[in-house]
């Protein structure tokens, strides 16, 4: 599995998208630095929560994971190099799992670290809050990685479908419709942050346990779907 992991890290980190990922991941730290410089009546806690909920969890994290997740398999499908993995004596889960891990490392980790650093800067060294934020974002990143990696393998227009998911389902439908408000990776991530540090994001509506189960279900479900798809597809 290490060979597939290393290969995927090199694929993702060496692509032009990685520069965009780094640019997006740097935004929370930039916003935090501006808060320290500018004069404002907003408290550090309010500003930190706003950065985490509205900027990172709602926009940067899903976008970064979308950009990378859809090409984790998508590029190998379109340039036909996937055959070099599928003709090896590897169970399909041993291809999917390291690819997911690589996507998490290249996309999720920079965003989680950036989100944590931003909180530490805004709150002037609140390590607990920073770690809680990083942990929640990493959990969300894992769920997004599974969803978008499956999409890159299974859908012809995965990027468009992913944008619709992020900006229609996550941002509008799951945010405002009662029936589906708990079917949201964003909500899971924010609830995990709140679970790890009860003083943050106090309006999180899910308990940390339920949110963790939600993340694990999404992760396991979409990983299983990707494995199934890889086993049944006609490899180009």
């Amino acid at each position, binding site marked *: 599995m*290490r*060979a*597939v992991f290393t*290969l995927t890290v*090199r*694929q993702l980190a*060496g692509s032009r998208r990685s520069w965009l990922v780094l640019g997006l991941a740097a935004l929370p730290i930039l916003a935090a630095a501006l808060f320290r410089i500018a004069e404002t009546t907003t408290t550090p806690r309010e500003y930190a929560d706003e950065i985490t909920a509205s900027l990172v969890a709602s926009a940067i994290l899903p976008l970064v994971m979308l950009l990378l997740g859809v090409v984790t398999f998508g590029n190998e499908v379109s*340039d*036909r*190099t996937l*055959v*070099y*993995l*599928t*003709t*090896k*004596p*590897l*169970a*399909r889960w041993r291809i999917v799992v390291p690819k997911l891990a690589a996507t998490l490392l290249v996309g999720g980790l920079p965003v989680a670290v950036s989100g944590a650093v931003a909180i530490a800067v805004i709150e002037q060294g609140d390590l607990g809050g920073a770690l809680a934020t990083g942990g929640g974002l990493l959990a969300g990143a894992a769920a997004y990685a599974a969803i978008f990696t499956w999409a890159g393998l299974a859908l012809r227009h995965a990027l468009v479908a992913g944008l619709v998911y992020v900006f229609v389902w996550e941002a509008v439908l799951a945010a405002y419709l009662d029936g589906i408000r708990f079917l949201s990776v964003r909500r899971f991530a924010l609830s995990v942050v709140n679970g790890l540090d009860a003083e943050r994001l106090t309006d999180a509506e899910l308990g940390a346990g339920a949110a963790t189960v939600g993340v694990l279900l999404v992760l396991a479900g979409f990983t299983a779907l990707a494995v199934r798809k890889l*086993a049944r597809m*006609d*490899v180009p």
Partner: protein
Amino acid sequence: MTGAPSPPTIAVDGVSKWFGGVVAVSDVSLAVEPGVTALLGPNGAGKTTLLRTIAGLTAPSQGQINVFGEPIRGNARLNRRIGYMPEHESVYDFLTGREFVELSARLHGVADPGGAATRAMETVALTEAENRKLRGYSRGMRQRTRLAATLVHDPGLLLLDEPLSGTDPVQRLHLGNVIGRLGEQGRTILVSSHILEEVELLADRIHLMVGGKLAASGDFRAIRQQLNDRPFVVRIDTTDARALAAGLLAAGAVESVEIDAKGTLRVRSQDVSLLQRSIPAVAQRLGTRLLRVEPLDDSLESVFEYLAQG
């Protein structure tokens, strides 16, 4: 006491593959034994689809394929004994040639991937350029690297789709020798090609595919003999088609003639060299002018069609 005969390395039984309404492979049954066997046919004959089906990359719409006596589709463990080289040239071009081959060794679970990669690169004579990125390789170098990655784990079965494509004559001869040697060592090698001369270099046995169907199977030399014996059709535009047709028939250079409404003459001959000599000689003797002489069925497709009919 005699044991049960061992199954062929590859057993294809009534396999068809269609994509929507397009039939790519139609009811093909064949067996491939150790040694080098060629899958020959013009472009679009279904060779690549059949090879991909044998490699387990796509499921047959109908029929069954066994490799080493086991179904291949969904049987990842079996890939340890198979090396598959696809037709397309795509590679992970951010890797060096050596990294690409070593990656293949690692994914196959080879105990010493570094050593295996060194041996494979030596086999394809690419050690000098092995540390260059694949994106800087020529087409032939990529082809040799892909072959090295295909044989790095020392498989018992090699499926090679157009392996000599893009190589220069010297490389072609070298790779032909490499493939021949691997076959002599007892491996089963199925190699596809649309070039007759290439197949002559590589294989003794062939399976000929035309239009998705298996048209002929057997010894290459016998098929080649059929090819040499095939009749040629030549179109001739001349000032007096009737006179020239009669002259060529009288000279015994053609076996049949046909003149269409526009006066164009089509002649059919078994002896191409006699026909080549006779056309100008007869035309000169009869005083008719030759405006155009054009072989009509020299295309590769027509050659395959002829062999298929035979």
